């Protein structure tokens, strides 16, 4: 399925772009699976998405945990813990 991914703050700087549109393999249907899939892209990505750093996720502008399910057309965002206020 096809989704949009957005990256913010430290993570955006680390992967060096802010958004992408990708086709996911059929078995990538949760946030955890998507993180594992992205971690395969190289060292940079592995460091971010191997679970040693806290990477928060939102689906369609709502915070979700890593077990959340991804659907076709979703906007998935990855970012560090928030620090506003």
């Amino acid at each position, binding site marked *: 399925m096809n989704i949009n991914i957005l990256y*913010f*703050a*430290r993570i955006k700087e680390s992967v060096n772009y802010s958004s992408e549109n990708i086709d996911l393999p059929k078995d990538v249907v949760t946030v955890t699976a998507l993180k594992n899939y992205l971690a395969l892209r190289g060292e940079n990505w592995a460091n971010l998405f191997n679970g040693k750093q806290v990477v928060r996720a939102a689906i369609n*502008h*709502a915070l979700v945990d890593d077990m959340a399910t991804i659907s076709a057309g979703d906007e998935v965002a990855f970012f560090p*813990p*928030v*620090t*506003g*206020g």
Partner: protein
Amino acid sequence: MTVRIQTEDFDLGQELISMRLSGNDRGNIGALVSFVGLVREFTDNSLNDGDSINTLTLEHYPEMTEKALTAIELEAKERWVIIDSLIIHRVGTLQPLDQIVLVAVTSAHRGEAFKACEFIMDYLKTSAPFWKKEATSQGERWVEAKLSDDVAKERWK
């Protein structure tokens, strides 16, 4: 209930006057509680405490920010009897002493206004998509999330 995300500064006095005096329920307001978050002149963390701050830049997730803040206001309105609430959060590049955020709550009685205002701030700190980057005398650095903010949020559960 209002949420505003903006680069420009806000006039605190005008915003609070407008909370007091606009609205059909203004005659029921007995309490107005407000919080303003400000840029400090020095960093405050375990790694590099005391570096002087040149600028503080706030990034956010535009499509999500207003939705997240509105959800926090709605939750506050579910939990306490409040009359109105206002959140203004700035983004972009700020200087020391600048205003970052305003949260204001009106209610008939002070207890509810205090609780709702602090609740909104505690949730904003931990669930609204803003990220701060400090430019200091020692270079640029993303601000780390604080465990104390998670603890503050847990109190409300």
